[in-house]
């Protein structure tokens, strides 16, 4: 790595991860994301997409290989340390604290910032999400699906992460709300935050992504610009399985 090229914002080297020691789900993934890039991870159900991002975030044990954040090895750092290094993660399900108020959800994330900066940072995030600001003392469990995703994203942004990983933020949302969430993500990315997006909503995801990778049975099978993938019916048929509409029916 020479001095001129910055290290990738996020990278994995031969990453092997899984819930049980003798049962690797992610099987040797080499994955790189450049600073300010928006990459989407696609793949059929059960391919290991969630397991891959959970392993990077520190929620699933890494058996072998490494993960790097801006060149620093974060393989062994515990989950609560990763966010302090600038890695924010929005899980696929249960990604907000339903029993806490909106304000407490954001304050909880802000608790790792210096005390003098917390209130200002929460105010900045409320400016980005006026809907949340209007209901700050409401219990987060009372929010609609779309608002919950917005809160989860807002919560992740509190710490000004360098990399934001989201696991299927569109799941369970109506097409209109998906559009809103995705245009938000595009804005956040345009502002300079690297985004890794796991998605089943192929069309919407490819529309905002720079690059797409496809994960099948725990291995990366395709890596290329999002635009070409969107027009590639064979790849879509081979690896993406159900169409977005078909997936809605499964739920």
């Amino acid at each position, binding site marked *: 790595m020479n001095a001129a090229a910055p290290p990738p914002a996020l990278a994995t080297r031969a990453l092997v991860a899984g819930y049980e020691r003798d049962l690797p789900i992610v099987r040797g993934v080499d994955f790189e994301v450049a600073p300010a890039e928006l990459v989407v991870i696609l793949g059929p159900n059960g391919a290991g997409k969630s397991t891959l991002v959970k392993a990077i975030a520190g929620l699933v044990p890494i058996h072998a290989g490494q993960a790097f954040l801006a060149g620093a090895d974060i393989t062994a750092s*515990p989950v*609560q340390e990763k966010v302090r290094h600038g890695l924010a993660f929005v899980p696929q399900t*249960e990604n907000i604290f339903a029993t806490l108020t909106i304000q407490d959800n954001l304050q909880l994330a802000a608790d790792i910032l210096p005390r003098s900066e917390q209130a200002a940072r929460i105010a900045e995030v409320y400016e980005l999400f006026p809907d949340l600001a209007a209901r700050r003392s409401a219990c987060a469990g009372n929010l609609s699906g779309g608002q919950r995703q917005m809160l989860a994203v807002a919560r992740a942004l509190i710490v000004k992460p360098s990399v934001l990983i989201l696991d299927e933020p569109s799941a369970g949302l109506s097409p209109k709300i998906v559009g809103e969430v995705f245009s938000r993500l595009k804005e956040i990315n345009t502002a300079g935050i690297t985004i890794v997006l796991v998605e089943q909503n192929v069309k919407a995801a490819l529309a905002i992504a720079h690059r797409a990778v496809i994960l099948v049975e725990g291995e990366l099978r395709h890596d290329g610009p999002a635009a070409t993938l969107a027009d590639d019916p064979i790849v879509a048929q081979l690896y993406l399985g159900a169409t977005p509409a078909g997936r809605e029916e499964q739920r």
Partner: protein
Amino acid sequence: MNPQILVDGLIAGAMYGLGAIGVTLTYSILRFANFAHSELLTFGAYAALALSSALGVLSAGLLAPLGPFSFGWSLPLAAITAMALTGLLALAVDAVLFGRLRARRSSIIVMVMASFGAALTLRSLLEFVFTSKPAYFTRELQIALPLGGGMRATPDQLLALVLAIALVVAVHLLLTRTAIGRSMRAVSENQALAGVVGVDVRRVIRVVWLLGAVLACVAGIMAGLLVQLRPYMGFDLLLPLFAAAILGGIGSVPGAMLAGLIVGLAEAGTVQLVGAEWRTAVAFIILVLVLLLRPHGLFGRPQA
């Protein structure tokens, strides 16, 4: 109806409430019913007794009663040290037992059984060291003051009640107004997500043990001061503590205290109206009724 049952019930109930807070917090954060919690209560009481007696030997002046109370400076001084020791004991038990089981992702039933084992071990140790003969913090006799309305209470009893209420308010504020309290509520809802947000879950678990142990120690000292110390004092409180924790709603501090008072009042009322032999059945009946009719208790959140 004799109005005195109100005073008796509230005072016993305050003790139950303090113990139940520890039960409810460990339950909501560690997700198992810790049957060894009552032994923390017994340990705290005996630790305070041993330290208080030792202080009395060093300086007899420390035993001279403080104002209207039955005890001297030796007891509050001993109590503070005993709280620290009880906290250390809880951390030690977690380090050698529960923490290891958590690391192995043991099932809830294994944790509960381990807590039974820990309870038996601790109780036997206390019985071995202090014998099963009842012991007392002081031999001073106290005159109950008239409170009006035919009710009477000793200064010690009133102090216990005030102290219990003050501690509940303090713990409630800690949970609702501070960063560590926010972390505790977050871990209680979703441990994995709390980690993702940056909460050090292991630190939160240590704080919960310390908090529960300190409150157990205070409740044990109260029981020792108002009744007597016996190696089985905690064990006898187990049912009222769990009844209060579950009636209050797991995770709710004000709920635990309110429910403690309800259990205490129900017991006192039963003793008066039905007969003393029914006392121990009261907590059991409350427990069963809550589990059947409203398993999430007064202030708990229903499980999805």
